[in-house]
């Protein structure tokens, strides 16, 4: 039988699984914004934010929600090779496998897309788009110009990546949505809801508001960092639960453990 803390720890394993999605006020408003943007006749939509602000799970969720209404596809892993990317795209457009020893001709693909205009509207959700090369991005732009494919480009928000965005897409019809780190109240809800979703009521209750504030302080409201911290916290709790029960308070998550986890992850230093 796994210990309660081991189970709680696994709740915070970073994932983009839709089942793990937690509805929060801020994320819900971003979701609605994105859904609305997709419904507009835009060629490209930029979704940007710091790593860990929930871009991937948002794309995943929107794909999951709209998949029965629209032709929507989620390109999770960036395809660094052009060849592979066009192969994937060919499969989406034609719903067929590419014959062996053949390559997709980009201009033929553009023509094919043009031929589909008005007949189909395909939405491609491109995650981690900052990893695509400039050339690739330029081709993506040309594809979007056919108005058959609508791209949702998810980018990390850094100076360089902003430059890429500016260079390639500034002149296009844009809608940009920014994802930000969550405020304290949202992060609190996120942690509690995650635990309650898996029925860990006691553990959820043992994390008090002051603990949440401390967690928010260490993670700056970033979901990925929060997941890492919570995972480490429960990992330490798991150890104490198994070997040194006197050092753990089941009714109240000790501040010491939060700080130990923060030390381990380098949020604070001696």
């Amino acid at each position, binding site marked *: 039988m796994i210990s309660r803390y081991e189970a709680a720890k696994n709740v915070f394993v970073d994932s983009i699984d839709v089942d793990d999605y937690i509805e929060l006020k801020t994320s819900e408003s971003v979701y609605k914004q994105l859904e609305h943007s997709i419904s507009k006749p835009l060629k490209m939509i930029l979704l940007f934010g710091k790593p860990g602000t929930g871009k991937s799970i948002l794309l995943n969720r929107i794909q999951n929600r709209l998949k029965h209404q629209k032709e929507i596809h989620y390109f999770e892993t960036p395809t660094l090779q052009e060849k592979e990317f066009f192969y994937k795209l060919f499969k989406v457009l034609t719903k067929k496998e590419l014959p062996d020893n053949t390559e997709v001709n980009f201009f033929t693909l553009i023509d094919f897309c043009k031929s589909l205009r008005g007949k189909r509207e395909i939405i491609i959700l491109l995650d981690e788009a900052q990893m695509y090369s400039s050339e690739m991005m330029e081709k993506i732009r040309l594809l979007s110009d056919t108005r058959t494919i609508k791209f949702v480009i998810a980018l990390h928000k850094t100076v360089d990546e902003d430059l890429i965005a500016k260079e390639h897409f500034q002149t296009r019809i844009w809608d940009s949505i920014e994802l930000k780190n969550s405020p304290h109240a949202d992060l609190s809800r996120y942690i509690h809801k995650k635990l309650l979703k898996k029925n860990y009521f006691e553990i959820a209750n043992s994390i008090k508001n002051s603990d949440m504030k401390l967690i928010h302080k260490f993670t700056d409201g970033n979901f990925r960092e929060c997941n890492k911290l919570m995972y480490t916290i429960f990992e330490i709790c*798991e150890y104490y639960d198994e070997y040194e029960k006197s050092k753990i308070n089941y009714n109240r998550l000790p501040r010491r453990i939060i*700080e130990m986890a923060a030390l381990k992850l380098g949020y*604070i230093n001696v």
Partner: protein
Amino acid sequence: MYDITPLEAEWKEYNSKRKKPFYMVSIIIMIISASIYFLDYKDLKVVKSYYVKIVDKLKSYGQNDNNCSTDNNNSIVKKPLTIEGSKNIKIDNKNSYPMDADDVYNDEKEKIKPKQIINFEIKDGNDIEVLKEIEARFNAAPDSDDSIFLAQEYFKKEDYKKSAYWSLKTNKINGFIEESWIIFAKSKVKLGQKNEAINLLSQYIKKTGSEKAKKLLKKIKQN
């Protein structure tokens, strides 16, 4: 599961470093508080000692000249006083009340302001209005301090009938005020009621064994 001991050690170090500023601030606050406390205490002691001196002097002044009375708590009774023949009062630096304490305690001029503590209202000894005022006050709220004061004042004015009356009033309120019995006996003698005075004093001596009363009784008996 990883080894938690180094992490615990790291946390202990972190915790002690984090608390260091708090300890420092606490120590500084304690030092400042202690300094303030001791400085204040020292000042208080100085003030208190002067206050005690002043009260002692007032007491002695009151006892010597019967012009100032104090209550049981040594606090100054704020009432108008009549100093009769004030010109004849000999100012003795050791025993008399320093009318201006600043002259005596120049170095503590700012800290001690006896004028603010003692509310003397010096009236002319012949001002009968004052006595009437006190009589009215007594009638409204009988107080042995007022009646003994009136007895003393009327005795000084040689109005022995009134001094006997007010000392009797005092005795009815409080039968253990020596001064009242003495004035009463003296007044009776002055009124020619020597036997009555002897009887009263003898009774009082039996009750209290007062030395002052004994001396007076002896004096009366010897004429």
